[in-house]
């Protein structure tokens, strides 16, 4: 299997578009979620959400530049911004439209769960009124779940695999790992890997209704500044967000040949499922399988007996947090691996659903590259059973950012509805002289 590195990053986070905004907010621990006026009138019990801030002129400027006619899908907009930014960040050119060949060795796996909902609902309203003809010719490509990858493929002229994956909260990291395999197997040299999620209010309404199998609301019902807190005893539920995070993955050879900036190398990767058994469920985790996922990743990355500088957890501030920590602890013990810091990016940006993996990987790579740890917002104290595990691991979940610290590797964990897991290990790339 070929070696794969990361050469570009792009994002639309709740703070807005761009890496600088994102990094500044992470360092300052700015909360990306707040009560949203736009959610009034949607029968929501909780109107706090993390919706990307984009100005009208930013949006129009972008849609004009890329000739995006009648774009209705917020997820496609976010994904295109993040994707194009990552591509340019990687120093890759965007080919002229009609003249050139596509880039046969460059593709994309860009995931989403609900990107089509904006266009779909618009279509239903018209069709029910027998006015389908009014919707014009660009709705099908936005309503289909693969809209984002199709649009990216067309703008960037991608000629390799162009597809969309979906596994709810697991989507982003899964897209990155599927892209990793595509390159590692020799089938592509460059893959734009990421994920996006729509900010259409219907999605917030849907999550507002969801319940855990314990009958409690899945999402937070209290003031997040005081109660949104990973690994606490209260398990209050999460906050929902939207946006997009994107990475450019590339074979090491291709990156070196064009002297690209290398953010890090992917050394460990694993995808599995808990099968919704042995403690797992549609909305719950099979701890043994999550442990295996992490353990396989550690072993593949030869991180047995090594220290991991930080783990970017899934940590969504609900009952899954404790199980996640159990799995991490089991996996580290099994492989005699230690870890310095555990962090929750969701504590700052909320749970951006399908976009979460993409955004949290961008956050992790910024920390790896620029040598810092963002603090975890945790207004409540860590539950005693979790504090015990952290103590055993000699690991900290710092409630303040550490602005200058050498980072040489990290592990990221994710899981999603349906009891599906992903884990990745990334090391700083050391240039061989």
């Amino acid at each position: 299997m070929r070696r794969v590195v990361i050469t570009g990053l792009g994002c639309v986070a709740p703070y807005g578009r761009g890496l600088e905004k994102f990094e500044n907010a992470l360092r300052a621990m700015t909360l990306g979620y707040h009560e949203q006026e736009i959610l009034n009138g949607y029968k929501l019990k909780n109107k706090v959400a993390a919706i990307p801030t984009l100005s009208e002129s930013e949006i129009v400027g972008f849609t004009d530049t890329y000739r995006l006619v009648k774009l209705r899908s917020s997820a496609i907009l976010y994904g295109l911004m993040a994707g194009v930014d990552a591509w340019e960040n990687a120093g890759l050119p965007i080919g002229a439209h009609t003249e050139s060949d596509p880039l046969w060795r460059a593709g994309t796996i860009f995931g989403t769960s609900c990107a089509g909902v904006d266009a779909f609902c618009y279509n239903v309203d018209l069709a029910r009124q027998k006015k389908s003809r009014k919707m014009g010719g660009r709705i099908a490509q936005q309503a289909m779940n693969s809209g984002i990858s199709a649009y990216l493929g067309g703008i960037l002229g991608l000629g390799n695999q162009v597809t969309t994956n979906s596994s709810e909260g697991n989507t982003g990291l899964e897209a990155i790992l599927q892209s990793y395999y595509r390159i590692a197997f020799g089938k592509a040299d460059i893959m734009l890997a990421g994920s996006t999620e729509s900010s259409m209010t219907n999605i917030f309404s849907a999550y507002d209704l969801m319940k855990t199998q314990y009958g409690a609301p899945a999402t937070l019902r209290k003031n997040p500044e005081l109660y949104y807190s990973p690994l606490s005893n209260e398990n209050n539920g999460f906050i929902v967000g939207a946006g997009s995070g994107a990475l450019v993955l590339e074979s090491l050879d291709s990156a070196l040949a064009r002297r690209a900036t290398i953010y890090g190398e992917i050394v460990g990767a694993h995808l599995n499922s808990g099968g919704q058994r042995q403690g797992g469920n549609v909305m719950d985790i099979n701890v043994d399988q999550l442990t295996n996922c992490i353990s396989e990743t550690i072993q593949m990355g030869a991180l047995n007996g090594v220290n991991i500088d930080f783990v970017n957890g899934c940590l969504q501030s609900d009952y899954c947090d404790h199980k996640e920590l159990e799995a991490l602890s089991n996996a580290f013990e099994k492989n005699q691996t230690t870890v310095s810091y555990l962090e929750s990016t969701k504590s700052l940006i909320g749970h951006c659903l399908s976009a979460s993996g993409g955004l949290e990987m961008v956050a992790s790579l910024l920390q790896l590259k620029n040598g810092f740890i963002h603090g975890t917002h945790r207004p409540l104290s860590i539950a005693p059973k979790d504090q015990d595990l952290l103590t055993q691991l000699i690991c900290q979940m710092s409630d303040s950012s550490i602005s200058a610290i050498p980072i040489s590797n990290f592990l990221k964990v994710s899981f999603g509805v349906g009891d599906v897991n992903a884990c990745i290990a990334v090391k700083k790339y050391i240039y061989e002289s």
Partner: protein
Amino acid sequence: MKAKSRVVITGLGVVCANGVNVESFKQSLFQGRTGIEHLSILDELEFRCQNAGVPPLSENDIQSFLSSLNLSYVKSSGIAYGLMAGKEAMRDASISFDSNQLIPRMGCIFGTGSNAAESSELQNDYIHSDRVIDNLDILPIQSLASGVSIYLNKIFGFGGEVTTNSSACSTGTEGLLMAYDYISEGLIDKMLIGSSESSSPFVWSPFDAMFATSQGFNEHPELASCPLSANATGFVPSAGAGALVVESLDSALARGAHIYVELLGGEINSGGQRKDGSMTLGNSDGMVRCIQHALQNAGVISNEIDFISGHLTSTIGDVREVQSLYHALDWKHVPMPFLNSTKSMIGHSLSASGSIETIALILQMCQGFVHPSLNAFPLHPEIEPLVALNKIPTQTVETAALQIGMKISLGFGDVNACLLLKKMNLN
């Protein structure tokens, strides 16, 4: 370097317009029976195309199936079809499952484009009206594209990667090639691969709005889907699901599984919407390259191909597809194999098409027949010079030697997938 595993197909399951299981599908294919009908709901909604291919299952049939799985709250017809097809395939492959154990080293990639249709509509009604809707707390899961893979996982308990892929009309074929890569590289032993699409008219309305659907055949549904023909005016939409169990040869032999065919590999690529490509009609260079690379990857040369299941939707795209086949396979010099379009009988099931039609290809290869490509004649004037007329069957070819078959799928977004299958001759 470790040798790659060979990959085979050991289970099939299908629900589509002319067959609600593999046996009835095979019969319909053999008899050349169309599943396309005029739907009064499409008339009421004043669609341009009022014909569609919907699996012949009553509301009761679907409800009792879902009840048997304790999934009565599933409102998405696409998820229901996917579960039916998935269950049939797993049983066909003799893979056992129970509610406590995981199936180790088995994953699932089950695709869709619009399974969320029904639940999104209900969710929207809940927000904007007083309509009373049941099970609102579980409904959102069906609005996730991965709903179908989530519920398949609930039933079977896979231990490997479980996810949903979406690449428009190439979804099903793409899933099989992703499975091929994972299995041949030794990452996993078995995968349940498939795709499904809902039968809500609101899945079809956006296509109807853009003139992509069949025009002028509302009085004659049986003639509406006419891939390759001069009469083609657009596709007839349809719904359903196809599911296949894909497995390493070693795993299949070790457990004495029945093997349908070997999956030799293929290629997934895109035309990048460059040159003559666009969002809705593919770049011909991309198609040609996909086919040529598929053959190279599968270790097959053009004159070894006995049979092609085309994408062939009954649109203007058919011309470009045949031109690409002509060039990629060098039909100027190499005799053309059989070519047919299953869409002529069942319409275009969008994301489900690659799965359902690959199953049709496998059934024909194993039984040694070629189903008619309905309504293909008179051929489109740009297609006629490129093909051998006797290779596009108007009636079932009841006995045919079909060693190697090819499936091609072309999707919106200018995405292509092409795979090669070979009959297993095991003693």
